[in-house]
């Protein structure tokens, strides 16, 4: 592998190194403090198999109270949280067809928000391009796994009172939402999702207390149907 391609990919990935290491550590601490049976190995396995911050932060609550979540609900939640990944593959479909199957599958499975953002800015067009894409995906994955394993080990050593540390999960989603809302076209969908979920939560809190964990099905159904209902207006506003 020519060294310059590796080096360029590494330098380009440095901002992700900072972000993934720190965010990964935050997740690792949360995971092992909330799910005491889990340790650094479990954290590393989950990270390697998923490589998705938003999914893994949501997974902490799901694993902690696993009895409240049926597998169907978990699958639906995962689809809703990560449906954006479907769109990321689109620009690469033609290009990846030319790559050997193992490289194609690795690049597909290692796709994340940050990796995608770096890959679409790949400075190579011909030779070196597939290597560059691989290095970006591989480095980013290593940063994420390393961060979560370090965090998980740190979480095992923490002896002070960690009550309330699960707020970091809500905080991560708030951060993602604030960043998404910088783009105007995301604001109405965001408000729709938030208001509907708050309303459904209020309904369950008042009339079906004790079943609040079942609120996600109706919330998701209402959100998707209202987005379909508003399609014409939203598309007209976007164009």
């Amino acid at each position, binding site marked *: 592998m020519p060294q310059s391609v590796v080096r360029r990919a590494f330098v380009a990935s440095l901002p992700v190194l900072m972000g993934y290491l720190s965010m990964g550590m935050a997740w690792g601490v949360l995971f092992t403090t909330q799910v005491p049976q889990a340790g650094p190995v479990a954290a590393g396995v989950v990270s390697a198999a998923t490589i998705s911050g938003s999914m893994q932060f949501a997974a902490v609550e799901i694993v902690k109270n696993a009895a409240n979540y049926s597998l169907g609900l978990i*699958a639906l939640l995962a689809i809703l*949280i990560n*449906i954006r990944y479907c769109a990321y593959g689109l620009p690469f479909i033609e290009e990846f067809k030319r790559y050997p199957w193992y490289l194609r599958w690795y690049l597909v*499975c290692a796709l994340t928000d940050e990796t995608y953002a770096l890959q679409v800015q790949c400075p190579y067009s011909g030779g070196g391009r597939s290597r560059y894409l691989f290095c970006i995906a591989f480095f980013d994955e290593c940063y994420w796994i390393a961060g979560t394993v370090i965090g998980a080990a740190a979480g095992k050593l923490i002896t002070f009172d960690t*009550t*309330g540390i699960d707020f970091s999960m809500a905080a991560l989603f*708030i951060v993602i939402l*604030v960043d998404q809302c910088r783009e105007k076209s995301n604001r109405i969908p965001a408000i729709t999702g938030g208001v509907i979920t708050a309303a459904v939560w209020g309904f369950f809190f008042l009339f079906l207390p004790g079943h609040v964990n079942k609120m996600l099905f109706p919330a*998701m159904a209402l959100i*998707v149907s209202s987005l379909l209902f508003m399609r014409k207006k939203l598309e007209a506003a976007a164009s």
Partner: protein
Amino acid sequence: MTNHQILALTVMSAVVLALRALPFAVFRHRKPSSLFLYLGKTISAAAIAMLVVYSLSTVSGAGAVPAGTIGLFSASAVVVLLQIFFKNPLLSIAAGTVIYMLSVQGVLGKLLFF
């Protein structure tokens, strides 16, 4: 971990990987429909907003009045403001979490009022 916990994690990563592979399997020969693209674009923000509300409702100690509730609102506001102005995710998350932990453990109340 129990079997259900392991199954839950397996389902989650399987779905995530399937979503990443979906465009390569389905859209190799035909273009995605406009409805699919519309949902792909709009569901993300709506789903994250749903997770914000839902995860706030599951945070431990959030139901304790007033420390939990006040802590929840003030910590959330701090996260929003820090993220708007400084765009540093780790700073926003760490500051919000520390504020919430201090308030729900009763430390913040003692510091401010006694």
